[in-house]
């Protein structure tokens, strides 16, 4: 959707692909052409490099944008696109390989003079080596997949006793997600913030940073709320993070848009985490704050154009907050949820951007990522952005399945978040809330009446034993829903 929008603004025709599960999806309807690539299982559709390249050739495409999921960080896909005589919108395969293997990326960062957390600089050979290294670094440590990021295969290990089980689960996850069970360990930095720097680099040696995003509000190492600028980042730290990001970009020979992730501790010292060699889900924050269109710039860079501005021209205005609304039951510990969107109202109005593929009737399945919709609020300062985010959440209705919205509503009013005091441990310590959101007497009465009305509706719809057309009446009612 996001990519199609940029294409259409630039006068480029957009070709989409879809799996059997996505025949009715919004991106299929908005694209100029759309082609089926197989069953819902990603391995047989969205991860099938051969099929994707064949579609691109048959549709006579000039370039392929990988989006931000599935094959967006797959070097083999980038190579396959290039070998087919097409332009890959993103860094070339060899650059992705250099940064995609995480221990190699750590070495590259260290050699570029960027601080990295204590840990192994090559994949671990076996559990024995993991035990020795973890002991040397000192618990707690993070066990991570060497082949990929995104929280998959990643586990905090508090003590030697937990290492065996963590090793087994993480290598299994890593093998499933990346086809490689290689792991490495690094020192777990407690009370750290996850701060990342957006960069753009052209094919002519030009590179700029576009400001940071704080993505510390996570659960299971998956982001839920992000904001830019980071509430803990001052101008001096921003300069240092930007400088560190550009060193890595230059030393990797990076081209196109990317994100360099750091952990920042309580004292403001930072260490390199990894590079995401793709567009990020949270890129709209940077777009709102800088006024730039990152996807359009990706397309221009891929077409060989130089960056149309220099570092000094980049101006950040105001603050932005992104809420990732997911199909997860927030009150029940974020367990994944499925269902059909029965009623939908997306927020709008001043300073609110919505990136969403939802529509009423859409079946949300467990086939793909649980992200439903992104709500991004922008204001002249953090207070205005927060006020707009709160107002937007209040307007939003996603009925038909449990979502994360109760979490978002709570956090936006929670004093620590409002004060900007949070780190990656926030969700564990602040959710679920000790005191649930209270309704006043009038609201309780209204809710009670609706509970009764809804129960009566449901009872009336249930087919009863009488043969006088109750079934057909129920059928009609279903059809009218």
């Amino acid at each position, binding site marked *: 959707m996001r990519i199609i929008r940029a294409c259409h603004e630039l006068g480029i025709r957009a070709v989409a692909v879809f799996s059997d599960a996505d025949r009715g999806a919004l991106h299929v309807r908005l694209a100029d052409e759309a082609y089926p690539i197989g069953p819902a299982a990603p391995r047989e559709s969205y991860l099938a490099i051969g099929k994707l390249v064949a579609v691109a050739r048959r549709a006579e495409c000039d370039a392929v944008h990988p989006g931000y999921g599935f094959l967006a960080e797959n070097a083999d896909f980038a190579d396959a696109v290039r070998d087919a005589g097409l332009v890959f919108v993103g860094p070339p395969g060899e650059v992705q390989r250099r940064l995609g293997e995480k221990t190699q990326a750590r070495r590259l960062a260290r050699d570029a003079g960027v601080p990295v957390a204590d840990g192994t600089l090559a994949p671990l050979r076996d559990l024995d080596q993991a035990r020795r290294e973890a002991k040397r670094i000192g618990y707690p440590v993070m066990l991570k997949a060497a082949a990929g990021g*995104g*929280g*998959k295969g990643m586990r905090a290990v508090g003590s030697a006793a937990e290492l065996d089980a963590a090793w087994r*689960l993480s290598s*299994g*996850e890593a093998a*499933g*997600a990346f086809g490689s069970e290689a792991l490495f360990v690094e020192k777990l930095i407690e009370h750290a913030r996850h701060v990342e720097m957006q960069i753009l680099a052209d094919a002519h040696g030009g590179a700029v940073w576009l400001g940071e995003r704080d993505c510390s509000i996570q659960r*299971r190492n*998956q982001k839920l709320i992000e904001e830019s600028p980071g509430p803990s980042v001052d101008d001096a730290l921003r300069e240092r993070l930007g400088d560190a990001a550009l060193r890595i970009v230059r030393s990797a020979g990076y081209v196109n848009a990317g994100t360099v992730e750091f952990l920042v501790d309580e004292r403001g010292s930072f260490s390199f985490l990894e590079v995401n060699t793709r567009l990020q889900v949270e890129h709209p924050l940077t777009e709102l704050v800088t006024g730039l269109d990152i996807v359009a710039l990706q397309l221009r860079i891929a077409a060989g154009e130089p960056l149309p501005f220099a570092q000094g021209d980049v101006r950040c205005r105001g603050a932005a907050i992104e809420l990732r609304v997911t199909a997860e039951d927030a*009150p029940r510990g974020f*367990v*994944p*949820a*499925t*269902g059909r969107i*029965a*009623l939908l109202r997306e927020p709008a109005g001043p300073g609110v951007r919505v990136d969403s593929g939802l529509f009423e009737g859409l079946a949300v399945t*467990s086939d793909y990522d*649980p992200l439903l919709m992104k709500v991004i609020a922008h204001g002249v300062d953090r207070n205005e952005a927060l006020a707009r985010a709160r107002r937007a*959440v*209040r*307007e*939003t*209705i*996603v*009925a*038909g*399945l*449990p*979502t994360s*919205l*109760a979490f978002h*509503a709570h956090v936006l009013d929670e004093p620590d978040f409002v004060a900007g005091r949070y780190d990656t441990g926030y969700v564990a310590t602040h959710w679920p809330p000790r005191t*649930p*959101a209270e*309704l006043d007497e*009038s*609201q*309780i*009465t*209204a*809710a*009670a*009446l*609706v*509970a*009764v*009305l*809804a*129960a*009566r*509706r*449901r009872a009336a*719809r249930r087919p009863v034993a009488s043969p006088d057309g109750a079934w057909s009446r129920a059928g009609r009612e279903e059809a*009218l*829903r």
Partner: protein
Amino acid sequence: MIYEVSVGERRLRVDVASDGRFQVDEHIVAAEIAETARGRQWSVRIAGRSHEVTVLTHDPVRLLVDGREAEASALDERTAASARGASAARGGRHELRAPMPGLLKTVHVAEGDVIERDAPMMTLEAMKMENELLAPARGRVVRLAVSAGTKVEGGAILAVLEESE
């Protein structure tokens, strides 16, 4: 008809008269109600206050009241009374249910096995994570409802365990 209603922690009795008027606990409520989405959303005006109430999910009932989520239930008196009678649990029998939709990667037990409480029974892959499902009690596995490699829905019964001493 009289309903026993809960909204969050609150318990209320709602009497719906045949003329459509409501009595909530001891008070007659003058509410003006408009159904704004069939079976899903109502606009309720009470003494000038305007509330929008949406039924987010039916089972359990979760409502969105002016942008705030609240759990609720409404049972007519007769159903409520019979539900109380039936709630005496069938002791000794435990169902292992999928806590979330996902792919059942491994089954660590076989029918007939006697296992300890908290022994890993299955590994469920969901949300890119592997989750070990542990035995809810010490006992014998009397039924395995699924095999490894199966995609399961949230709440699906995976196994039945008969408690033993």
